[in-house]
C-alpha cells in the first residue's frame, strides 16, 4: 500500500503565490483528476509532487519519505511524469526512448541488460506500442508518441504516475485508449495516478476522485458527483453548465452553456411553446432560451434530437414514446402547456402520422387565441408524409391567421415585436 500525502503545500513564483495550503492524500490504485482553469496551479502542483519545485512551506510525502530532498534518481524510481509537451525531435527509436525510463535504475557505465529489455517490452506491450519499437519517435503520430512516453514512464517502475493533460492533443479514440490504460494501471498494478484534465467528461468518466483547483486553492475535493456540480463549475470557471448523468455509461457529463444564456436567464420574457421534431427545433430552442424566452416544447418523441436538446436546456417537454403516434393523453397535456404560452412556434419539421396531432394542436392554439408562427424553411410538399393531410392542416392554419415566416431571424423579430406591442398597448396584436 502506497500513500502519497501532500501536507499544507504553498508555492511562490517570485512574490506571486501560486499554491495555497494544498493538502490531500491519495492511496494505491486511485485515479485522481486535477481540474481547474488555466493558471490555477495545476502544473505547479505536479512539479511540487515530482520534486522539481521546492514548496515554500509544506511537505510532500511518499509513504514516510519526504520527496523534496531525495536524489533525482531515487525520485525517478518512485514517481514518473508524463509532460504536456512530448515532442522529441531526435532520431531515437521508440524502444530507445522507453529504455531511457530505465536510466534511474542503471549505474553509470552499465549498458541496458536483458532484464531492462524485458521491462521495456512488458510496458510497451501494455501500452500497445511494441510494434513501433524500431520506428523513429519523430515519425509517430501524436497518440502513438503519447503512448510511447507513457511506456517510458512505466519503465521507471514508479509507484506514482503524474500526467499533465495526457489527452489534450489526441483524437477521441486515442483519448479513450489512454484513459482505459490509466484506469487499468490503477486497478491492476495499484499505481497512484494523478492527472491534469481540461475535459470534465473524461475526468468524470474515469476518475475515482477529483480535485478542483482555483487560484492555487482547492475549491472542492472528493467523488466526481460531489465536485463536479454546476455550482462549483460556475464558481471556478464563471460558466453555467448542465451536469447530467449519462444513461449509457452511468457517469456524469457536463455541458457548458454560453455566457449569454447565463445573463438572459436571470430576467425571463414571456412563454413560447415550440412544436418541433427531427432536429428542426434545436437551433430555435437554443436561440429562444438564449434570448431569454421562457420556452416549452411538445409533443416530442424520446430519442428525437429536439427532445435531447430540450432536456439539455432544461425545457419542460411533453414527451411520447419513440416512434409511436401521439396518444390522446399526451395531445391533451400538450394543449394544456400551449394554453399557458403567449405564442406558439411550429418549425418546418417533417410530418408523418406519428406527429400529425401536433399540427392539430397548433390549430387549437389559434382557436384559443394564441398567436401562432409557422417557420417554413422547407416547403410542406417536401416534408409531408401523410398523403396531403399535413398540407391540408397547414392551409387551415394559414386561413385561421397563423403567421408564416421564412427564417429564424424573422421569427425572432416578430416575437420581439409581439412583446413591445403588447407592452405598449396592453392588448394582443392581430397579425
Amino acid at each position: 500500500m502506497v500513500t502519497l500525502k501532500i501536507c499544507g503545500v504553498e508555492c511562490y513564483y517570485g512574490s506571486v503565490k501560486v499554491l495555497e495550503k494544498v493538502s490531500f492524500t491519495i492511496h494505491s490504485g486511485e485515479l485522481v483528476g486535477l481540474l481547474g482553469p488555466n493558471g490555477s496551479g495545476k502544473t505547479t502542483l505536479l512539479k511540487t509532487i515530482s520534486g522539481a519545485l521546492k514548496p515554500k512551506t509544506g511537505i510532500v510525502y511518499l509513504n514516510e519519505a519526504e520527496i523534496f530532498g531525495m536524489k533525482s534518481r531515487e525520485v525517478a524510481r518512485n514517481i514518473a511524469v508524463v509532460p504536456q509537451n512530448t515532442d522529441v525531435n531526435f532520431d531515437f527509436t521508440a524502444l530507445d526512448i522507453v529504455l531511457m525510463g530505465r536510466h534511474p535504475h542503471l549505474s553509470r557505465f552499465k549498458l541496458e541488460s536483458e532484464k531492462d529489455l524485458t521491462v521495456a517490452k512488458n510496458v510497451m506491450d501494455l501500452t500497445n506500442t511494441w510494434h513501433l519499437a524500431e520506428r523513429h519517435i519523430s515519425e509517430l503520430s501524436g497518440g502513438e508518441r503519447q503512448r510511447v512516453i507513457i511506456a517510458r514512464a512505466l519503465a521507471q517502475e514508479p509507484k506514482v504516475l503524474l500526467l499533465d493533460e495526457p489527452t489534450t492533443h489526441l483524437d477521441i479514440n486515442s483519448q479513450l485508449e489512454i484513459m482505459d490504460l490509466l484506469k487499468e494501471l490503477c486497478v491492476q498494478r495499484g499505481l497512484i495516478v494523478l492527472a491534469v484534465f481540461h475535459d470534465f467528461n473524461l475526468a468524470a468518466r474515469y476518475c475515482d476522485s477529483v480535485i478542483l483547483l482555483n487560484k492555487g486553492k482547492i475549491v472542492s475535493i472528493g467523488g466526481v458527483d460531489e465536485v463536479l456540480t454546476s455550482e462549483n463549475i460556475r464558481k471556478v470557471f464563471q460558466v453555467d453548465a448542465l451536469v447530467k448523468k449519462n444513461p449509457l455509461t452511468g457517469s456524469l457529463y457536463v455541458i457548458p452553456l454560453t455566457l449569454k444564456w447565463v445573463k438572459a436567464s436571470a430576467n425571463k420574457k414571456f412563454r413560447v411553446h415550440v412544436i418541433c421534431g427531427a432536429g428542426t427545433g434545436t437551433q430555435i430552442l437554443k436561440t429562444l432560451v438564449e434570448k431569454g424566452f421562457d420556452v416549452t416544447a411538445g409533443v416530442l418523441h424520446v430519442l428525437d434530437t429536439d427532445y435531447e436538446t430540450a432536456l439539455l436546456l432544461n425545457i419542460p417537454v411533453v414527451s411520447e414514446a419513440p416512434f409511436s403516434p401521439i396518444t390522446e393523453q399526451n395531445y391533451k397535456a400538450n394543449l394544456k402547456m400551449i394554453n399557458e404560452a403567449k405564442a406558439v412556434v411550429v418549425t418546418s419539421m417533417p410530418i408523418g402520422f406519428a406527429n400529425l396531432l401536433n399540427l392539430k394542436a397548433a390549430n387549437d392554439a389559434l382557436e384559443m387565441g394564441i398567436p401562432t408562427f409557422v417557420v417554413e424553411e422547407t416547403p410542406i410538399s417536401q416534408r409531408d408524409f401523410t398523403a396531403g393531410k399535413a398540407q391540408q392542416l397547414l392551409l387551415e392554419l394559414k386561413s385561421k391567421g397563423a403567421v408564416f415566416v421564412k427564417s429564424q431571424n424573422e421569427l425572432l423579430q416578430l416575437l420581439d415585436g409581439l412583446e413591445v406591442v403588447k407592452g405598449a398597448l396592453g392588448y394582443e396584436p392581430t397579425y
Partner: protein
Amino acid sequence: MRSEKSGVETKYLKRFVKWTTIILVLSLFLLFSMALASTVGPMPISVENALGIILHQIPIVGDAIQGQWTPLEESVVVQLRLPRVLSAALVGVALSIAGVVFQGIFRNPMADPYVLGVASGGGFGALLAIVFGVGLSSLGLFYAVPVMACVGALSTMFLVYAIARTGFGIPVLRLLLVGIAVSSFFSSLISLMLATAGGDIHAAFNWLFGGFPICKWEYINVASPAILVCSVAIYAFARDLNVMLLGEEQARHLGVEVETVKKRLIILGSLLTAVAISISGIIGFIGLIVPHITRILVGPDHRILIPSSALAGASLLVLCDVVARTILRPIVLPTGIVTAMLGAPFFIYLLIKSRRITV
C-alpha cells in the same frame, strides 16, 4: 510474428558487439590515416614502413613489430612527423568530443566547442604572449603561447559561466547569449591588438588560423593525459546526455541531476577545447561537422557517438593536415584554413541532402 519480436530484442542485446565493431573499424582507419600522414614530407617513406614504425613505438606490443626501415627513417617519423600527426589527432579528438558535448547540452546542432567564447578568450591569451611577450620570460619560448592560450580560454569560460548563472542554475539560452557577447568582446580585443601591434604579426595570424607549426613530444606528453582524463569523464555522462536530449525537465524526471551534470559537462568540454587551442590555435569546423557526420553514421546515442566522433575527428584532422602540408608544397598552409575550406561545403552538402538537421 513472434520471431520478429525476439529479433528486436536480440538486436538490442547485440548492440555492444555492433558498437565494438564500429570502434575497431574507426581505430584502424585512424591508424591508417596517421601512417599515411607520416609518409608525407621531403623524405619519401613507404606506408608499410610508416605503419611499422608507428606500431613499433607502442610499448610491449611494439617489440613484436619488425620491418626493413632504416634508423634514419625511424627518427624522421618519430622525431619530426609523428609529433605533428599526433597533435592533429589529439586536437581532433578534443574538438570533436567537445562539439558533441556542447551540441548535446544546448540541444542545438549549431553549437560548437567555441560557443562559450573559449576560442576568442584563448586567442586573446595567445596574442598577449605572441605580441606583447607576456609569460615569455617565466615559461620560455615554447610554452608561453600554449599556456597563455589555455589560461585565456579557461578564464573566459569561467567568466561566461559566472555571468550566465542564476539562482535556479544555468539556463542554456542565457549561457549561449552570454557566450556570444563575451566572445565578441574578446574578438574586438584581438582585432585591436592586431591593428596596433607593430613588428611581426605573421605568427599571430598563423595562430589564429590554427595549425601545427611547433609540435613537441614534451607538450604532447602533457596534453594527452589531460585530454584522456576529460574524455573518459565526459563518457561517464553519456547516458545522461541521451536523456537530456529530451529536454531538461524530462531529464530531471528520469533521474538526471540536470544542473550538476550540465555544470560538469560545460567545464569538461571547455577544458578539452582549451587544451586543443593551446596545441593548435583556433581550428574551426571540426567540432561542428564531426558530430554531425558521426551522428548520421552511428545514430544519436552518446555511448557510441562520443568514441566514434573522437576517432572520426582525429582521422579527419590528420588528413586535413596532410592536405595543408601538400597542396601548395613547399608552402604549409594553416590547417584551420583547410578544415574550413573542406568542412563548410561538405556541411552544406549534408544539409541539402538530409533536408533536416539531426541532433
